[in-house]
């Protein structure tokens, strides 16, 4: 027994890929405003606020294998999506003049409206009425004004003994009120040339499922057919024509509900990175993305140029419908956005990082993108991390982006009913955007600050301001704290 013990060859020491468990807590706050809400057919408020707390836990399972679990909840409130059902039936005292109207949409309107005989479904007093009103310019109180996307992903990677080959696999799942996603993927990376060169391949598949919700007026038409104005929501509600007169001619006959509510996405990625010198390294990446299924958003309204206009609400606002002075009328949709059921997207991107000196680094990124919907885009960004000390780094950054419009895009009310595909979503329009911001990073080199047995590794703060040439503007800030065991 003793002899056999001495005859064993000791295992060579192998450094762990990851020394100890890391926990990263991330939080972001995003707020935007704009005037081209896609739910309003390319017109209306795009006000949106989103917060996303996220936890990422990375655990070394042994010397070679690392497990990462990433989970979070992205919660938003949105004026645009609230207007899937823009109509609010409110009881109001009809003594306030519309001139006094504020962001409390429709809570004030002229006495004459109640007296005119317009739909007064629950007149409980001399001047208290309930009537449906709406506007694309403000949020309604509909349930769709808020939602939460909950996600979890787990990935595992294994490095070879010589650390030159890395294999990985991942799973992903997320759920929203009207959307669910399940994804999986695998990757392979190889380092060679004394780890100066790396090539990696990755494949991912998402199998997504819409649970479509449609704009209220189209939902009712889909439910009750041609008699829908006398049933359900529209029963007792007045529809107005362009002149403000009551009519029963509104018939969105082009609308049909989507038969297929699946969306599948497959991505194949190829990356190559190379050290060029002691201070410069570059990478080139390309993805080939194929999507199929329901690629339209079921609650994006469309208004045709060759169809009459119909409204619900206060007729006195029809003339100012497309301005923010419209506090009380909403135009009824002719259809929803229709986009092809397949799309191929090819982005090609490159990074070049340069270590200028001990206090300054340059990080640059460029991407060219094209797809078979006719969009071409370019992205360029530059970040300049400046080391203020061993612990502190600040990094100002600038990003520029431009894209051409999708073949199927036209602004509010410009599409023809004879077209096969149409959208008024300005995310698919032609625009440029610029993003300016900065970040601050604190690194606790000796992990002196402890909490629950974990030492603080770093704290990051990042702020960005985004401006799009169609008027959409947003800010985002994020905070990240990483602890190590």
């Amino acid at each position, binding site marked *: 027994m003793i002899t056999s013990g001495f005859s064993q060859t000791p295992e060579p020491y192998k450094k762990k890929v990851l020394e100890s468990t890391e926990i990263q807590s991330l939080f972001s706050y995003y707020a935007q405003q704009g005037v081209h809400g896609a739910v309003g057919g390319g017109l209306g408020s795009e006000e949106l606020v989103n917060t996303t707390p996220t936890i990422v836990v990375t655990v070394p399972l042994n010397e070679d294998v690392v497990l990462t679990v990433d989970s979070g909840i992205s919660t938003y409130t949105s004026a645009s999506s609230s207007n899937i059902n823009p109509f609010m039936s409110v009881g109001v005292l009809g003594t306030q003049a519309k001139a006094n109207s504020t962001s409390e949409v429709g809570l004030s309107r002229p006495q004459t409206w109640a007296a005119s005989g317009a739909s007064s479904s629950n007149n409980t007093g001399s001047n208290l009425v309930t009537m449906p009103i709406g506007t694309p310019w403000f949020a309604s109180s509909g349930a769709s004004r808020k939602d939460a996307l909950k996600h979890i992903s787990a990935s595992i990677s294994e490095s070879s003994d010589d650390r030159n080959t890395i294999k990985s696999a991942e799973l992903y799942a997320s759920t929203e009120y009207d959307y669910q996603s399940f994804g999986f993927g695998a990757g392979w990376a190889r380092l060679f040339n004394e780890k100066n060169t790396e090539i990696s391949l990755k494949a991912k598949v998402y199998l997504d499922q819409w649970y479509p919700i449609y704009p209220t007026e189209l939902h009712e038409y889909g439910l009750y057919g041609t008699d829908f104005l006398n049933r359900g929501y529209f029963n007792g509600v007045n529809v107005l024509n362009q002149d403000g007169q009551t009519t029963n001619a509104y018939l969105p006959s082009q609308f049909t509900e989507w038969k297929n509510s699946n969306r599948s996405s497959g991505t194949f990625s190829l990356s*190559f990175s*190379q050290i060029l010198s002691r201070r410069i390294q570059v990478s080139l990446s390309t993805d080939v993305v194929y999507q199929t299924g329901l690629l339209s958003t079921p609650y994006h309204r469309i208004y045709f140029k060759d169809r009459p206009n119909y409204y619900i609400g206060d007729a006195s606002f029809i003339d100012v419908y497309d301005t923010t002075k419209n506090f009380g009328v909403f135009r009824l949709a002719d259809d929803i956005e229709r986009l092809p059921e397949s799309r191929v997207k090819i982005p090609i991107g490159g990074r070049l990082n340069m270590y200028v000196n001990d206090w300054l680094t340059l990080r640059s990124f460029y991407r060219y993108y094209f797809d078979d919907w006719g969009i071409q885009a370019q992205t360029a960004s530059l970040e300049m991390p400046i080391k203020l000390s061993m612990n502190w780094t600040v990094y100002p950054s600038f990003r520029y982006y431009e*894209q051409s419009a999708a073949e199927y895009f036209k602004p509010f009310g410009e599409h023809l009913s004879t077209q096969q595909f149409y959208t008024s979503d300005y995310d698919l329009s032609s625009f440029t955007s610029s993003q300016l911001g900065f970040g601050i990073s604190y690194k606790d080199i000796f992990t002196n600050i402890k909490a629950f047995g974990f030492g603080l590794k770093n704290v990051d703060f990042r702020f960005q301001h985004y401006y799009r040439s169609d008027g959409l503007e947003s800010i985002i800030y994020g905070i990240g704290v990483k602890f190590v065991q």
Partner: protein
Amino acid sequence: MKIKGLLVAIVFLASLSSCTVLKEYEKVYVNDEEMLLSSRSLERFEMTFQIYREAAAGANGGKTGGGCGCN
């Protein structure tokens, strides 16, 4: 033309592997944390809203459209 351009770029970058080969002890600068050829962890949130607000996505390690109601 686009495919040809992509192939030229790949061949060009592949030829870069003949550049100076650095030993591990020479990589102090390229191993600096700021030199990582990937986006920062906090950038994931920006990439998410960019996927919604812009048509282009991908080639940066982020998502390319799956997993959310965006295109």
